[in-house]
Structures are given as C-alpha cells and as structure tokens.
C-alpha cells in the first residue's frame, strides 16, 4: 500500500482496516500525531487529508487512497507557522500531549477564516485538553491571526505580585 505523506510517497505493509493514525505513528514513524481515544472524540490524532482537518484514528488506512496526508511534522519548517510561533511565545502547552492536534486544528481554522471571531474559535476548536489550556489556545489564535498583539496578551498574565513577605 502507498501513502502520500508530507510530500513523500511511502510504501507500507499493513492491514487495510488499520486506522490511519497507527499507520502514521508505527509504520511511518511520525509520532507527533497522538493517540488519545481511538473514537474521534479527543482530536489528538488530527491531521490533514488533502488539506482538510480529519481525525486519523477513525479512518481506515485503506480509505486514504492517494489523498495527501499532512502531519504536524510538516506543518512548517522551523516552527515558522504563525500558530506555532504564537504557541511558543505564549507557552500555550502544558503537558503538550494534545497540542499537535490543537495546532493542526488552529492552523486549519486560520486557513479557512484568517481573522476568526470568538464564535468561530469556539466552533472550530473542539479538541480535548485535559491540562485545560483553552484560554491560552484562544489567546494564541488571537495573536496568530494578528487580532491581538503578543505584548498585550503577555502583559495580561505578567502581573508582578503585589506584596512580598
């Protein structure tokens, strides 16, 4: 079986019903895409198929055909995607396990809607984060889309403790 992943044609020998997620992780060795639930609930496995955001845990590898797969590893060279830059500057991730999926979802949103409203963010960003980084994810999208200045967002959290014992 052939997969077109991150601009390369790769041959893999797997069971046809194997979810794309496991082909990506185990056959292609791209472990940035994560397993969280296996039932398309959490979004940790988000990748692009022909540019569309999909949950790879619930797509059999046999259904992919010649569609172009893009994983987190190929979102940008050198962390240069505006979403990655904003995420780094704001320290959005905590444990970070869900963040490949969050970054892919946010980048897909910005491609579709370059200046998303909060309502757009609400409906597009449906991935689970157990650490609870949602507030920073929202900030990150505001910054990545140029709707808020990085310095303003940072200042919001940079309160110097008022009193010191």
């Amino acid at each position, binding site marked *: 079986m052939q997969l077109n992943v991150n601009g390369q044609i790769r041959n893999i020998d797997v069971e046809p019903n194997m979810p794309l997620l496991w082909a990506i992780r185990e056959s292609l060795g791209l472990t940035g895409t*994560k397993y969280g639930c296996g039932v398309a609930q959490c979004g940790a496995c988000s990748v692009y198929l022909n540019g569309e955001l999909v949950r790879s845990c619930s797509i059999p590898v046999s259904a992919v055909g010649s569609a172009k797969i893009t994983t987190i590893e190929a979102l940008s060279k050198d962390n240069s995607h505006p979403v990655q830059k904003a995420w780094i500057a704001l320290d*959005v991730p*905590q444990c970070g396990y869900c963040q490949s999926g969050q970054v892919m979802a946010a980048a897909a949103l910005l491609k579709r809607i370059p200046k998303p409203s909060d309502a757009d963010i609400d409906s597009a960003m449906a991935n689970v984060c157990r650490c609870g980084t949602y507030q920073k994810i929202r900030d990150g999208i505001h910054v990545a889309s140029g709707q808020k200045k990085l310095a303003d967002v940072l200042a919001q959290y940079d309160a*110097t403790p008022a009193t*010191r014992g």
Partner: protein
Amino acid sequence: MTTNTNTSRRHFIVGSSAIATGLAIGFDFSIMSEANAAMGTGTTAMAPLVSPEIGVWVVVKPNDDVVVRIVRSEMGQGTITGLAQMVAEELECDWKKVSYDYPSPAENLKRNKVWGSYSTGGSRGIRTSEQYVRKGGAAARIMLVQAAANQWNVPASECVAKNSVITHTPSGRKTTFGKVSVAASQLEVPKEVPLKDPKEWQLIGKSVNRIDGTSDKVTGKQIYAIDLKLPGMLTATIKEAPVFGSKVKSYDAAKAQSMKGVKKVVQVGDGAIAVLADTFWQAKTALDQVNIVWESSPNENVSSASIKKMLEEGLNASDTFVGNANGDVNAALASASKKIEATYFYPFLNHATLEPQTATAKWTADSCEAWVPTQDGEASLAAVIAASGLPADKCNVYKVNLGGGFGRRGAFQDYTTQAVNIAKQMPGTPVKLIWTREEDMTQGRYHPVMMCKMTAAIDDKKNITGLNMRLSGQSILSAVRPAVVAANKGKDPVVFQGLDPTGEHGITYSFPNLNIDHAMRNTHVPPGFWRGVNVNQNAVFIETFMDEMAEATGMDAVEFRRKHMKEFPRAVAVLNAVADGIGWNKPAAPGVFRGVAQMRSFGSYVAAACEISVKNGNEVKIHRIVAATDPGYIVNPAQVARQVSGSFVYGLSALFEEEITIEKGAVVQKNFDTFGSIRLSQMPPVETIVIQGGGKDWGGVGEPTIAVAAPAVLNAFYRATGKRLRTVPLKNSGIKLV
C-alpha cells in the same frame, strides 16, 4: 520578555550503560540527547563531557552553560521552570544559559538520596523543595566565588557574582562561572548557606517562559512515553479483569497467536492478559480475539446503586471518625430555633490523562530497565525492583515525558509493574506497553465517591450556633496507605482536606459548635489521588452550604463568610479580591448571576467568583471567573495563572460532565463519549489574582484552585434559578455547560 525557543535546554544525564556497569559518577556526567536516551542501552554512543558538578543541584560547563538538576516531574505544571528559577536566583547565573536534567532515581538511591523526594503530587513540587533547591543554588554561587577568589588570591568577600560573571570589586577583575567551575567543584560544599531576602528576588516572581521545550510540543518532536522507540522493541497491550480484583480463570489465545505480527500472548499476574506484537494495532486487534474467562467474584454484585445505598446508610451511622470538632454541636442543634439540612453526592472520577497509561521495560536475568512516564521516579524504581525480582542495583528507571499526570502516575505504578511483568516473559526484548483508552477508563485509580449531610443550627437572632458535617464514603488511604490509617486508629485523615482544625488543609471558618466526621464506606473500586483530592468534594459541600446558611440567616453570601472568617485574614484577603474583581457589590448585567467560594488547601488560600447565565432552565453559560490565590510566594505569575485557568477546566469538567459509574462490579464508561471533558467553547475567561501573603510555609499551586470553581458556579446557579443542585455531575440533573 524573551521567548525561549532553545530546544537544547534538556538533558538526560547518565546513560544506562554507565549505571549498569557501576561507573563512579563523580564529575563524569555523561550528557546525552533525548533521542539517545530514548534509544536506550543499545545505542548509547554518548560523547561524555566532563562537566563539573558544583554541589548536587548545579552543573556549570566550561562554556558557562548551567544545568540545574530537577527531580520533581514535569507534567505540564511548570515545575521545571519554577525550580530552575529558584536555583538560578541564588546562583546569580545568566538565565538564558540555564537548562535542566533529570537525575535518575537509581542514581539518587546510590547517592543516599541527595536530591530528596521525587514525588510530584500534593502540589508539593515547589513548596516543599524551595529551601533546599535555593540553598543548592546559593551554595554553588559561594563555591564559584570562592574558586575565583582563590585564583586571584583575594578574600571571597571582595567578590560578587552576577549574571554568571564574578567580579573582584576592588580591582575590577572579572571571570566567568565556566572558567572557575572545575576549581569550584573541588571545594567543600558550604554548610551555612544564607538565602536572599524575598524582597531582593529578581528572577523569582518573574513570568519567564518555560525552559522545558515548548517548541518541541508544537512540532510533534517531543517524545512522550508512548512515542518511545528502542531497537528490536515489541509493543504490548493488556486487558485486566473488568471487575476489580477478579482473576483470569482461563483464556484461549489460539486465534490471536496466529494473527499477523503477534509474537506472544501472556498472562500478567493473576488478573490480566497481554498480547505482544510488532505494532500496537496488531496487539490490540489480537487481544480482542483472545477469549478470556474471568473467575466469578462477589464484587459482581456491586453497582453504583448499591454503593449509594451504602453511603446513605453512613450518613446516619454511628461508626465514625471525627476530623474536626469544637463545642457541643448536638446541644446547639437541640436548642436551635431553626435547623437547615442538605445532602450531597460526589461521584467516582477518572484522571483520564490524554496519554493513556504506558511504560516500556527491558528485562534480562541480570538487569531491568524501564522508561516510565512518572510523577514519582522513586516509586517507579521501587515497582521495577519488586516486579523484576532483581536486586536494586540491577534496576534502573528513566523518566520520560508524561502526557498528563493529575495524580494517576505517582503512587500508582500498576502500569510499570505490568510492563516489567510482560518484559520478563520476553527476556532481552524491550517491550512497550500501551493501554487502550478503554483500558485506561476502566482500570483507573478513581477519585473517591462521597456523600455528605450538612446540618446547621440557627438561633433566634439568626446566628449559626452549630454546624454538623457528616461525610460518608470511600477512603483513599485505606487502599493506598493502610499503614497511615492504622496509625490513626482506622481514621483516614486525608478525608478532611480543607476541613482540618489547622494546618495546610485547615478550615478557614469558625463556628461556636462544630462537628465534622466521616463514616468510612469503602468499595472494591480502587481509589486514587485525583487533582485536588478530597478538597474537591469538601469544597462543594461546605461552600454551597455556606450560601444556604447565609440565606437562612438573611445575610449576603460574602458578608456571611467574612463573619465566620475573622481568624483567617489571608482567607479574607483572597475572598475580598475575587469579590472586588467580580464587582460583588455592584449589580450584575441583566440575566447574569454571581457566586463565590473560598478554601484553604495544599497550604494556599484560594477563592473564585463567577458570573453565569442560565437559558431554558438548564443551559449554563459561565461568562467569567475571577480567581485569587495566595500560596505565600509566587515564583512565576504567568505559570500560576495557567495552572489556575487549567485547574478550572478539570474542575468544571467534573462538575458538569464526568462520572464513573459501576455496574456488575465494573466501570461502565469506556471513553470520552461517555466520560465528558469540557471543550474550549465551554471555558470562560479566567482572571487570576496572585497574592503573596508570605510566611514561613509555602503553599501549592497546581491543585488548590480546582476546588473553588464548582461551588462558585453552584451558588450562582441558585441565584439564577432558585434551585440548589447537590448532586455532581450536573448532567444527571439535565444541566449542560454551554
């Protein structure tokens, strides 16, 4: 603020081969990349660097790079950055040159536990190590300065260190840390190590960016335990008896064994079956084909309904343990002109770390190594030693990045034990065990189930004359630390977190007559420490009942609290901060309702106030939350804000959507479709106020605030609808967070 995109700030020290062959550590610190660490013993072609260790907490390399030892585990809470800030503050080094490493737990054992506790729970990472890590930084600075002074033949008192540069003030001569680090490492570690006055802190208290590799987390490069690859590695997945404590009676693996990629089907301990295969997917599909017959167990008769019945009986039972009491509450109730009463329920909860449980182990007849995502490297090592059947000096544990912890991966090393038990059946081959989400959901260490009956006595002048609080439910320590319970004559002291007479979990209210007791009602469901632990339910019980008592006595909810908080000025300060922040004394927008709550837990004073609206009687929108926390000292305000905001996501998920229920002795929920976790759209903006109340003891950050979101929202819901909700989660009352 500088943005750290330096991914080389991480080091894993001491290759496993160095440990296995018993090389003296001394100054020979073999720094290897994460990738090499992940490759394990097979390919540890490390380039050893001679990097002088200055004391035990700091290594200064000749190029001035500073490596700070971190033994608490990073799981997203920012402990690495905070601990490094504290060391660097006293070391007076250039923060941009600071990176960290994780000394292995085996090395700690070998060196007489020089790095102290590895346990990363109870919000202790910063607060219980601040003294020794700050002293570690200060001692290294003293040694570096002394080394420079020795070279110049001047008194050390004439030299100062700043930004990794040492200056001899009278002559203006300068040198750098790196140039004197070898000499410094040979000096004796000073015994008297004065620390800076907190007023002089430059780096502690600053919102510097994290140093644990944010850039790798947004490119997929960060290696989590589930991502490990070792040469020749197999992957395993496991199924443990769905009814806790049941055993494997028999199993038929004929079909599974013939499936592609499958290497072996093994029994693990008494109660589990695992499949080893080339890939996870092969292992999982094969495990689904193993026909396992479980031994019958009386626990099959246990259900959520039977557990609730047992807890309800406990609400009026007499076999109780008293956690906090003063005066005579029965007399107060007998003479009350009015009594109010309320009964509450708080369910089992699963941690549901987004990375399911996983661990990798390699076992041979004379060594055992394990790569573990752990909140407590020492506990992992102990599990490996026990399961491997090998002496301690033949075992090693490498800490690997965790995809979430929340209390699941510290005291509980069941997954580590399993990985070793599986690896033992495939000697010489590294085996990575990965749990399915379904296994993770059904084999947790669950937040204990608890009911509570609150009863208040009110006199004719509308004073609360007595408060009785009866807890009925599961004890964590009975299952996890039975020796502690035995030492307390059967009582589990942790049940009373947030309600204790005094201390880090001391109650912050005074009542003339008070009784808080616990009817211990244990189940076969294994309990665990779930972020916030017992404060979660205790805060719901007491903080919503405070509102009920305020209403019954005709007082404003904030004013009523203050009336009973006179002995706790720091608690009043956080309460006032959130009341001011939410605009408590000003009218809310039409259709918007407010609630507050406050607690002391894990040594910190915390409070939250929220604004909500309710549509159609059941659709709750939280518009904003104002939170305040006073842990005494704040190391990194932005990190604290992240923890507070994140804790509310965990806490509100539990309030609205999460519940583990039991049918026929087993967990019903299998995945996130039935065990909800709130999403971004449901999360309100959180404004965090940090207060440094100072004092001798530091408080924690990761857990305390989680508990105040739920009661604040419940109190606001009552104002919005006139309904008191006393059963968690709210989904069972048809209520949704939108």
